[in-house]
Every structure is written in structure tokens, then in C-alpha cells.
């Protein structure tokens, strides 16, 4: 660690300590760290030594947030530029160029998703969204600017009330937004034309892992023949699921649901607080990515397009990411 550039260590710590948050920001910060590491490399000018150094940096960064899919995706995307290079100079340049490309593409991604998604919205639409997603808010706001949105329902999203953030963002852009409790989704869904949500992770079969409650919102929408769109940047697609890895769903503290005093008074009540749930692909009409609108079952297309290396399984040793194979060491 001693010969890693200081700024790289700082970024790694920032991700680990959750000062850097949100899938896109984490991915861009890690990519920036890889670029800095390459530029400030002080070791011997040897291709193998450089590759080993970059793999170590990559492993350090991946370890900071093991569950955020955007992180390994960004790192693999950058480091796979080292495959097939023949000299040290070429290698250094490849990393820097690929890192810059990732950063600009990912910043552009959310904007393109807004534009592509807004095209899917017809005039006089009522939209419902769950939780807070930058990509989903982007689509809704763009569609509103185009004069197509008459009303938006935003769920409170217990336990952390991210719906209030969504409310504030939409209201700031002048979008007519109404909050509802999560339990009222089926009550209003007949009025709704589109459900638009973000994603935490998209699995290779098109299942979408997102904030708890998303799957029952999608089910209620399906029952009412309301369309369900998921707005997701390509770095949310999980290559590990392609080799059978399950997406683990984290349980968070019961104190997010009820106050500590309540828990102490009720020792036999277990408060279960899963953060995410899985929406099956058959409840999703389309996933809107920066590369276009795809049916969820075609999620694998995005993996090929963006992360073609994943398909030969070279990067995976027994279902775990192996950066040595990514850089062909």
C-alpha cells in the first residue's frame, strides 16, 4: 500500500466509508482512482509489473463496497483495456484513455436515458415512481418538460423515506407531484399510465434488484395493465449473475423501522428490514439504458455490448472476479 498514490487511497476510503455514494458516483470515483494510479505509477517500466500493480489497485477498490455492482463493472471495463497491449507505454495510455472514456460515457448515460425514456411517455400521462432514482427522476422531468406529464405519484418509501427526496427533486422542476404511502399503490394504480423506477442491479436474466417494494409495485401495475419501465445505466448490469452468482440482499438495522425504545420494549418482536427485492422480468415492460430500450430478458445484450469480456468467463474463477485474468496475466 505504501507505494500507492495518496489520492487513490483517499478515494478508496471515501467509497468504503460511504462518503462517496450512489452507483454512478462510486463507479466514476473508482475509475478516476485507476487513472491516477496509472499516471502516478513509479515502479519499473515493465508491462508485467505494471499489470500486477493495476490489478492490486483494482482489487483494493473492488473490496471497498462488495455489493455495489457498478464498482467491479467500472474497474473491469477499465482494466480490460490491458488485454492485448504489447508494451508498458501502450498499457499506461490504454488505462488512462479507457478511464476517461468511462467517466464521460457514464455522465452522458443518465442524460441519454432521460431522453430515450421520455420518448416512451405519451401525452397526458400519469406516472408513479418508487424510492429515489436519479435516472427515473431524469426521465420523468424530461417527459414533463416535453409537456407530457400531468401528474406524478411518488411513494414515501419506508423505512428511510427516499420518496421525500424524489418529491423535492420533482417539485423543484415544477413537476406536479403527490406523495402516497407505500400501501396505497394499488389504490391509485388505475389512474397511472407508467411506473418508472430505477435499479440497483440488473441480473443477466433481466430480473431487477431495486428498493424493497419495487416488485409489488410492478405486480400491481401488471394487474392494472400499467406499463413498468426501469431506467438503468449499463454499469448496473451484473456480469457475475451470468455465472450463476445470486444477488445477496442486505438486511439493515431494525432501528430504521422503529425507534430503539420500541425495540427494547418488545424483545419478542423481530423487525425484519430487507433493503432490496427482486422484480421478475415478466413484470417489466422495458429497461431503458443509455444504449436504448431493451426488453428485460435481453439484458444479456447489454452485458455483451458493454462487457463482452464477461462472456468468455475469463475474468471469473469459480464465480468470483479475477482481475488477473481480466488483464491476461
Amino acid at each position, binding site marked *: 500500500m505504501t507505494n500507492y498514490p495518496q489520492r487513490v487511497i483517499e478515494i478508496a476510503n471515501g467509497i468504503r466509508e460511504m462518503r462517496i455514494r450512489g452507483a454512478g458516483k462510486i463507479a466514476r470515483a473508482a475509475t478516476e482512482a485507476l487513472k491516477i494510479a496509472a499516471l502516478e505509477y513509479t515502479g519499473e517500466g515493465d508491462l508485467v509489473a505494471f499489470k500486477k500493480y493495476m490489478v492490486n489497485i483494482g482489487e483494493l477498490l473492488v473490496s471497498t463496497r462488495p455489493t455495489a455492482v457498478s464498482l467491479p463493472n467500472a474497474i473491469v471495463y477499465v482494466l480490460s483495456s490491458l488485454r492485448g497491449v504489447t508494451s508498458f507505454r501502450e498499457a499506461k495510455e490504454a488505462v488512462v484513455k479507457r478511464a476517461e472514456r468511462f467517466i464521460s460515457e457514464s455522465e452522458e448515460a443518465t442524460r441519454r436515458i432521460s431522453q430515450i425514456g421520455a420518448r416512451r411517455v405519451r401525452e397526458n400521462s400519469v406516472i408513479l415512481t418508487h424510492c429515489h432514482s436519479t435516472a427515473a427522476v431524469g426521465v420523468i422531468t424530461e417527459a414533463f418538460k416535453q409537456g407530457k406529464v400531468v401528474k406524478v405519484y411518488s411513494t414515501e418509501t419506508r423505512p428511510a423515506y427516499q420518496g421525500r427526496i424524489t418529491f*423535492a427533486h420533482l*417539485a423543484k422542476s415544477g413537476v406536479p407531484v403527490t406523495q402516497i*404511502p407505500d*400501501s396505497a399503490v394499488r389504490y391509485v394504480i388505475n389512474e397511472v399510465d407508467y411506473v418508472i423506477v430505477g435499479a440497483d442491479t440488473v441480473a443477466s436474466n433481466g430480473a431487477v434488484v431495486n428498493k424493497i*417494494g419495487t416488485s409489488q409495485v410492478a405486480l*400491481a401495475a401488471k394487474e392494472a395493465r400499467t406499463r413498468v419501465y426501469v431506467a438503468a445505466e449499463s454499469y448496473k448490469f451484473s456480469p457475475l449473475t451470468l455465472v450463476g452468482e445470486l444477488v445477496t440482499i442486505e438486511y439493515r438495522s431494525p432501528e430504521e423501522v*422503529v425507534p430503539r425504545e420500541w425495540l427494547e420494549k418488545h424483545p419478542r418482536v423481530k423487525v*425484519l428490514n430487507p433493503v432490496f*427485492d427482486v422484480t421478475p422480468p415478466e413484470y417489466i415492460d422495458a429497461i431503458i439504458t443509455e444504449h436504448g430500450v431493451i426488453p428485460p430478458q435481453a439484458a444479456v445484450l447489454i452485458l455483451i455490448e458493454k462487457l463482452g469480456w464477461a462472456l468468455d468467463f475469463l475474468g471469473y474463477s469459480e464465480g468470483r472476479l479475477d482481475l488477473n485474468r481480466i488483464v491476461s496475466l
Partner: protein
Amino acid sequence: MSSRLTGSELALSVLDELYSTASKGSERELVKRILDLVDLTMSERPASMATINVLRQIGLYILEHGYSGVDKYILELKEKYQAILERAVEVMSRRIASGEVLLSNSNSLAVRKLLAHLAKQGKSVKLYVTESRPGDEGLLLAEYAEGLGFDVYLIVDSATRFFMKSIDKVVVGAEAVASNGAVVSKIGTSLIALVAKEARKRVFVIAPTAKFSPETLHGELLKLPEHDWKLLVSSEEAMRLPENYNARVPLYDVTPPEYIDAVATEYGLFAPQALPLVLSLVEKSGFTIIRPLEDVVSGLKKLIGV
């Protein structure tokens, strides 16, 4: 009129109040109180069928038999209500085997009685409870079930589908049952029922026939009250809300009969769609005589000259 009282609790509290008015006051006072309660119920709890039926019955008694004996009648009506609720709960309890995992929402009196019944029968069940926003009545139900010694799991409303596979049966109470078998209950019940149906889990509603809405037989729609954002937040939370915060806060929703496997009543367990038929066969219930509430109200008004 508290929105925290369940449908049955509200009906029982109305019966208590009218009994004490009847045993102390004059006919005029009692009739005025009944008319006030009708207004209050129609504006705040318009789907609380048990209360509406109780008010109708007492009004009818006065119109048919006069004031004398009304206090005794009210007392009988209360005992009858408690008895039919108890019988409905007993019917439901037979469908539940020891070791089963149940899910419920809100804080239905019928569900609490069911749990107490199961505890008495020595059946041990596990209970998932949704917190049931707005109002968070699920916390009260969790507390009650914990007191009976059951294992209780409290979850947010959004986590229903996440846990549905671990559940054997959904059991809920009702505010009203319409003539097509649709059930009005705490907001979110219809979503729970849909999620249960998807997972092929059975959904039971405990509803004595006093919850049946005779008006809906004549095409009347049940009215569902809504509140505004103030019901979603405490006053200190309100300070931290986004500017111009607004919300739509429905209190009840309608679960279609096709998502309900059975309604447990005092006459037994029935398909929800069969209830009107059952009621027409067993007219003795006392809650089923179909006389529009407006008729009773105008009769009472004439009686006291308002």
C-alpha cells in the same frame, strides 16, 4: 371519531355511548345523538358498515317500538355483536393449524380475538405484521401478539412480497363487505391480497355479517375516506419536509372477491360472493333487514320534529 378504532371497536363504542344516553336521557336526546352519529360516521367513517348497521337497527327499533325498552335493545344488540364476532373468530380459528405462519396488517379486533383464541387452544403460530402506514397500527398488533407469546415479525408495508413465500395464510379484518363480495379494509389490504394470490397463499377475511352493506345490493357505492399529508408525519417531522409537500392518504381500499378465499362469518366460512345469498337464507341476523338508512334518518327526524 377516531380513525384508530377498528370497525368493530367503533360499533361497540357507539353502542356503549347510545346505551348510556338511552338509560339517562330522553327520547329526543337519544334520537338527536343517533342523528349526529349518522352524520359523523358518514363524513369520517362512511365505510364502517358495522356502525352504520348498528345505528340503523337502533333507529328502526325506535320507529317501530317507540322509546320504551330501547336501552335493553341496545344492550342486546351489543351482546349480539360480540357473540357473532366471537363465532366468526371461532370459525376462522378452526382453519388454522399449529405451526402455521400468518400475515396480517393493521390492528383488527377480529384478528386480535383470533390470536387470543389460538393461544387458548394451544396452537402456536408465527405472525408477520406489516407496519400499516398511515397510522402504523401494525405496531399495536405486533405488541398484542407478542403479549400472547407468539413469535412476531414486523415488516414495512413494502416488504410484503419479499416475505410472502414464507407465509401460509393471510388473515385480515374488514370495515365492510359489499354485495359482490368485495371487502373494504385498511389501505394496503388489496395489495397484500394480490401478492398472496400471486404466491398462491390463501387469504381469509374475518367479518361477522354485521359488516355486510345492504345498500350495495341496491347499487350504492361504498365511500372511502381520504386524508391529507398531515396523517403521514409527526409535527417535528413536518418541519423537515420538502417545500409545498402534499400527499394523498387513502385510509381504506377494496379487495376484489376473487382475491379472497373465504370470509369467516358467524354462520360459517363462505366464498365472499356467496354472502348475499347466505344472508337472504338466514335473515335472523338482525343486521340484514334492508331498510335504507335515509328512510330511518327521515323517520327519526320527523319523530323529533327537526
